[in-house]
């Protein structure tokens, strides 16, 4: 994992990123440039490359290693010829999501949104969608902790408006 302690392989230029809680991560330049937000720091400001610490206020250090791992692997997948088999990419993606709680997933979506990387954001939003697919309203509400601020009458009226959508759900 990327951490400030990695000092070997000094050939590749490193960029230091600072997570929300102040922890530093040293990242290879091509990996860091996958994040548009980081890239925007340096565009037209090449002098800043040296000794610049990039603060990423919406990314906690908890998620940083996983996110960097995603960038590393996916940029490697893209470069490889012939392209890696779909199973390999799928296996990596599944392993990436394994053991991630819903809350962690949402925090990572926030982070991906902030870092402005389409690939990660698309991947995570799809994962979130998969978790609420064909579930009842009550399930989705409990799942994400959404507070219902409708009165029973209002809710009944909205349900009646689109009655067709509310039949035939998975039981859970």
């Amino acid at each position, binding site marked *: 994992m990327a951490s400030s302690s990695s000092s070997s392989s000094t050939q590749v230029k490193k960029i230091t990123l600072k997570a929300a809680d102040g922890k530093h991560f040293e990242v290879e330049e091509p990996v860091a440039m996958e994040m548009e*937000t980081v890239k925007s720091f340096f565009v037209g400001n090449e002098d800043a490359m040296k000794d610049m610490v990039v603060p990423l206020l919406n990314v906690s250090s908890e998620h940083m290693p996983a996110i960097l791992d995603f960038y590393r692997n996916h940029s490697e997948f893209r470069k490889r010829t012939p392209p890696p088999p779909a199973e390999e990419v799928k296996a990596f993606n599944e392993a990436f999501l394994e053991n991630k709680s819903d809350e962690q997933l949402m925090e990572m979506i926030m982070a991906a949104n902030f870092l402005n990387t389409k690939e990660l954001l698309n991947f995570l939003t799809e994962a979130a969608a998969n978790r609420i697919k064909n579930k009842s309203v009550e399930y989705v509400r409990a799942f994400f902790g959404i507070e219902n601020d409708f009165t029973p009458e209002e809710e009944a009226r909205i349900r009646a408006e689109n009655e067709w959508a509310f039949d035939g759900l998975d039981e859970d």
Partner: protein
Amino acid sequence: MTRTSPVMSPTTSDGTPHFEPPHFEHNFSTPVYQHFESRRAENSDRVQREYVGSSNVQGNGSHGEGDVTSSKWVGEGQARGGDAALGMKVVGSGGTVVSKITCSCEQIMDFEGVGECNKGRDFISGLPNDILVQILSCLETKDVVKTSVLSSRWKNLWTFVYNLHFDDYDDKHCRSRNFENFQSLSMQRYSRFSSQL
């Protein structure tokens, strides 16, 4: 967000009507993260500071709110009841302009508190609308429509989903009296919701 209408000026020398392109204000997406690093040092007494970054004017007047939301941390501020309303000014005109964003240090600190807000259970509602719509767009339309009863924030959100997806679409839906009116109702709601923005 203001937008002046195209103006037909009668004063052109050759007698042909002169078409003036519409002028946009407050319409940009801009990376403005570079100054966060120094905010700690100067965090007190609500000093007004200016944040300058280059941005592209997006020539899309019909979609004003969305453009503002696409600037990441502005969007998050809005999602929290506009507690970080920013004073914004676009200077200059044309394809690329310089935009100035002024906000107090206290407001910057609010952005740092974003992480705190997310610790609450209702973290998904803390996401910006465009992300929620992106999540919904991966779902079947049936699931999308169902989100209208989650809470008042979600009531009309689904109308922004840009695709229809009927996977196990069966005859029953067609016969449902509600489904016949689905399209027209959706359009009505969309226009109502858009006008609220």
